[in-house]
């Protein structure tokens, strides 16, 4: 039984390594070089503000920094164990505890799987920051 248990420990270790490899090869890769992207901010009234950007950055938050620095876009975010958590955009704060509101990230029309700082940027991508309520 002891031997069998240790075999299962080895199985766990091998599977952990396999999962890490799958992630390494299957995760969306950041694209180097110049990229043209759009960001649309949709507020609580459904009003949209569109930003057309050119960037050499590889991740969304870094790509947005020049616009943020210019003051055309404000993102109020805080560090969490899961990465940057967006609390407010352009002065509009989403308070989930109060009314179930949150800022959602959409990538090319699909619900984003990554946080704003870990979302890889690709040429032609269309991102949306949408104020939503649960």
């Amino acid at each position, binding site marked *: 039984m002891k031997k069998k248990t240790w075999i299962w420990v080895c199985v766990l270790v091998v*599977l*952990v390594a396999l999962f*890490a490899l799958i*992630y390494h090869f*299957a*995760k969306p890769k950041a694209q180097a070089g110049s990229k043209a992207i759009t960001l649309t901010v949709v507020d609580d009234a459904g009003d949209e503000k569109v930003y057309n950007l050119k960037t050499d950055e590889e991740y969304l938050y870094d790509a947005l920094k020049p616009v943020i620095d210019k003051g055309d876009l404000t993102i109020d975010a805080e560090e969490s*164990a899961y990465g940057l958590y967006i609390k407010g955009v352009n002065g509009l704060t989403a308070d989930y505890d109060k009314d179930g509101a949150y800022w959602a990230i959409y990538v090319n029309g699909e619900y984003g799987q990554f946080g704003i700082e870990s979302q890889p940027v690709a040429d032609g991508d269309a991102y949306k920051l949408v104020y939503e309520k649960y």
Partner: protein
Amino acid sequence: MKEETSKFSVRDLALYGLLIAIMEVSKHALDFLPNVELISLLVILYTLHLGKRTLFLTLGFTLLEIFYWGPHTWVIMYLYVWPFLVFLTLQMKKHRDEKYDFLQFAVLSGLFGLFFGAMCSLVYLVIGGPRTALSWWVAGIPYDLIHAGANFVICLILFRPLDKLMGKVKWR
């Protein structure tokens, strides 16, 4: 006249309420750490001592989570992942090795944590199709790795003392 007997005594209900409360409190206490939780260990221990009745505890825990967070998609996941851990524990109980049980159940808990995202992605397979499920699973792999490591270590350290403690309780 035959007296009607309930499957659950008042004592059972009070005890199960307490066990569910322990699950809920432990979850909130560790909420600040992504995918580090005691629920897997508790479900394994509850199953070893209470058997199939643990299914009621997992259901009670899921209902409490719905009351607290609202009916999100992960509630559907909770409805099958925790009962699946109960099933796996019951299977492993048949092959329990008293000397190395802490290692056996640590491996089970680790594997459960590792495949947690894959199991949960089944909901997205139904909602959004294979591509959505796959991208959701891949994006969450780093968290599954943390989940596996944390589950393994937590079970390795806490299984024996908690199992011994629970062995002293008269459950029925």
